[in-house]
């Protein structure tokens, strides 16, 4: 035990630490969390890296090593990035909802904090952050001396304007799914030019994640930003300025000499949009691009053993949900039938077929193995046809039934649908697949009559498969997809005890309390099985061997401010 570090920690606890920080340190001392979890949670609570390092040394852990970003290449050169699919609408950050849009914007955008691969939060435009005693007020100190590419200085007013836009009900921002019930318009307050307070609607111990790159709509923009001008005028703070954009074709970025982080190694970035997987892969193999924003194992097999290609891999919580409507007058209304369907799936085989080793097996909840709050003692559901048949018989469905599975043509989802179709045949279910384009799948109204979820297929089909992106914490998905009347509750699931436990989980500060609630939530979901979650897959990208200093991001953003070319 390092005495000097111990004294520093004790001094911190007496003078600066609030109840949250104190609880965190206690949990670490008591062995409730491992080193990486401590680092991650400490970063969320705003402990500085030096303090984190002192805590590790004080309690007998190794020193905090500076993360190596990989070999550094030469200064200069332009990185050619292939982005697929292209953005589907304009590039206003608060409207980002598709991969093409967020990747295009985030190359030129920055946030208050940035989430690393290990879900640790690093300072970006905020230097430090601190909660009050019950995590209802978070105070962020901003980085001084930052300039927008337009020449304006960055300050608290810009943060207030950005977050008011994100939380306003009339902008239609998808970020509302994260902020609803957490932060309202007007809840972001300027204290002084470099200090901002977020006054939350409810205690949220993980709030800093919502200010990070995981909320990709949260790119900081000037207070006087005009909607519709993002692609016309460079006006972010990042290392690269967006200087050219042609919808469906590509984007061009130039180095910003006034970047607060110094001089980026690259002269610029040239992004080309691709709508076909084979075309983008051929472009990488043919040497016409240096980096692809996303690949999947099924279509990108040619890359995995190619000696000229490096695979960048980020473990994440991206997953597919297979909701089964619990409120219809059909066999799915019986939880035994839903359990039976779930028991027909050979999850390790599915993971191997669709993702090789690049995914975690799911256990029919949104608590990914990645999350520190996930209780690993909950038994993993496995394929069990005998039990599945028994459940079907108990439910009076021994002879099976017909059902239609509706889904979208995205990534490996069509293959997953076929696997499910084949699997449920073993228990007599005759499943028809209805695979739609993304436009058709998400078309229609999302709320209102007849049942409160409008008429859109993805929220109303008897059974469907929907893609869900990575999130640093499960809060948003729990609230929106599983809670009674959740806006994205495609199974129309309602369980009052479950709802109460979600409230408890979201408000829990100590990790052991989160795990306690989470375990109960998992057990309820395993019993009721409103949704099948077969896997959580890693975010994969690929690049040539020239690319140096690049790391994949589980959210899918492409961060190249520290990237170089050999």
């Amino acid at each position, binding site marked *: 035990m390092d005495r000097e570090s111990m004294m520093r920690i004790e001094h911190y606890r007496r003078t600066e630490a609030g109840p949250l920080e104190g609880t965190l340190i206690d949990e670490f001392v008591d062995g409730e969390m491992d080193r990486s979890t401590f680092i991650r949670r400490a970063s969320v609570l705003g402990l500085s890296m030096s303090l984190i390092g002192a805590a590790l040394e004080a309690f007998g852990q190794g020193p905090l090593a500076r993360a190596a970003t990989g070999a550094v290449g030469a200064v200069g050169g332009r990185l050619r990035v292939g982005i697929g699919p292209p953005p589907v609408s304009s590039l206003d950050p608060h409207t980002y909802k598709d991969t093409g849009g967020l990747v295009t914007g985030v190359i030129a955008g920055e946030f208050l904090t940035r989430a690393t691969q290990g879900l640790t939060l690093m300072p970006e435009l905020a230097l430090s952050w601190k909660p009050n005693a019950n995590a209802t007020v978070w105070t962020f100190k901003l980085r001084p001396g930052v300039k927008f590419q337009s020449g304006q200085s960055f300050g608290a007013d810009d943060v207030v304007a950005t977050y008011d836009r994100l939380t306003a009900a009339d902008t239609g921002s998808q970020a509302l799914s994260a902020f609803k019930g957490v932060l309202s318009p007007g809840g972001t307050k300027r204290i002084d030019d470099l200090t901002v307070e977020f006054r939350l609607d409810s205690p949220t111990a993980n709030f800093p994640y919502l200010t990070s790159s995981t909320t990709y709509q949260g790119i900081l923009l000037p207070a006087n930003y005009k909607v519709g001008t993002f692609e016309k005028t460079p006006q972010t703070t990042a290392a690269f300025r967006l200087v050219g954009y042609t919808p469906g074709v590509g984007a061009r970025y130039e180095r910003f000499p006034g970047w607060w982080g110094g001089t980026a190694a690259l002269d610029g970035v040239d992004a080309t949009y691709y709508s076909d997987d084979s075309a983008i892969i051929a472009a990488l193999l*043919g040497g016409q691009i240096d980096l692809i924003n996303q690949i999947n194992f099924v279509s990108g097999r040619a890359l995995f053993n190619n000696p000229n290609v490096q695979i960048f891999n980020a473990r994440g919580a991206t997953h597919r949900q297979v909701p089964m409507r619990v409120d219809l007058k059909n066999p799915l209304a019986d939880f035994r039938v839903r359990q039976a369907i779930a028991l027909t799936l050979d999850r390790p085989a599915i993971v191997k077929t669709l993702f090789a080793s690049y995914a975690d097996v799911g256990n029919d909840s949104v608590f990914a193995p990645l999350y520190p709050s996930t209780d690993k003692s909950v038994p993993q559901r496995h394929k069990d046809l005998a039990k599945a048949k028994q459940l079907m018989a108990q439910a009076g469905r021994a002879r099976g039934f017909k059902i239609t599975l509706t889904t979208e043509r995205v990534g490996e989802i069509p293959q997953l649908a076929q696997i499910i179709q084949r699997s449920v045949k073993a228990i007599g279910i005759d499943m028809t697949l209805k695979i739609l384009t993304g436009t058709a799948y998400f078309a229609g109204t999302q709320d209102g009559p007849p049942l409160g979820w409008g008429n859109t297929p993805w929220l109303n089909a008897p059974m469907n498969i929907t893609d869900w992106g990575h999130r640093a914490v499960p809060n948003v998905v729990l609230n929106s997809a599983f809670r009674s009347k959740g806006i994205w509750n495609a199974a129309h699931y309602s369980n009052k005890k479950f709802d109460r436990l979600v409230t408890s989980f979201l408000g829990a500060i100590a990790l052991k309390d989160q795990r306690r609630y989470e375990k109960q939530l998992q057990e309820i979901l395993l019993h009721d099985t409103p949704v099948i979650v077969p896997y959580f897959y890693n975010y994969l990208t690929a690049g040539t061997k020239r690319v140096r200093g690049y790391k994949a991001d589980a959210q899918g953003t492409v961060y190249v401010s520290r990237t170089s070319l050999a």
Partner: protein
Amino acid sequence: MARPCRRRTDIARFLLKRFALALITLVLLSMIVFAAAQLLPGDIGRNVLGPFASPADVTKFNHEHGVDRPVYEQYWTWISHFVRGDLGMSLQYDVSVGGLLGPSLVNSLKLAAVAFVLVVPLSILGGTIAALRRNRVTDRVITITGLSLTSIPEFVTAIVLIVIFGLVLKWLPVSATAPPGSNALTQIKYLLLPSFALVAVLFGYIARIARAGVIEAIDADYTRTAFLKGLSTRRVLFRHVLRNSLLPTIAVVATQTGYLIGGLLVIEKLFNYNGIGQRIYVAATNKDFTLLQSGVLIVGVIYLAATLIADILYSLLNPRIRLGSAE
């Protein structure tokens, strides 16, 4: 023999008739594509604003962009602006439709031009040689090769070409879009692989038509007369045979223009080429009415213009049409 002024009148009447027919066709096409666009699934407001926008915001968007008006009103607004050159704004991207379609059309024309320059002489040469070596080995090789290539789907041919010439041999780039600022030769180099794929698709058909035309011309009385007059084989071939045998080939080439300009979606996707085919496809997928309708109509205009030019060429080469007796 008709007097010159009567010949000019005949040609003018002929062209006027063709032009009027083309206009009627375009009006019908505009109505059909407009009606078809209304039937596409999805909602443009929801597409643009995303799944989390409130129904009120979606309704407001649709109202602001006029997509909730009666269809006849929407049609009239669109077509009346289109004929004046105002293609409107893309509902999806909120930029001018002309600004999106213009570069895409230019790209498609470039690709079509390179493909034409390769396939037309090659097909005519192949068809002519096959006809001159009728029923011999050379004829069989050319005919069977052409048929085989035509039967292979273009995306299969394209992928084979990409793998062999782009990835294994690395002779040619796998994407068709040259870097900005590239000169003409570089742009042509980038267009070679997709053009080869198109040559493979079209060669068999055009060569067969050319072969049939040459055989018919060779067997004709006027060719026998030319030989009996003592003209050389070369002179007979170029002055009499080819001139007459090319008539059906011109018609076939003209009918392929529409495909080469607006029908190359698969090729454009595989070679990541910003052609008008891709633009139209994305517009249809996202229910971007203004972009979709204008794109299809532009392709229609080009197709009709190509057939009109083919008719003019046909009439120049065929005196019977010039003199009006073939009407």
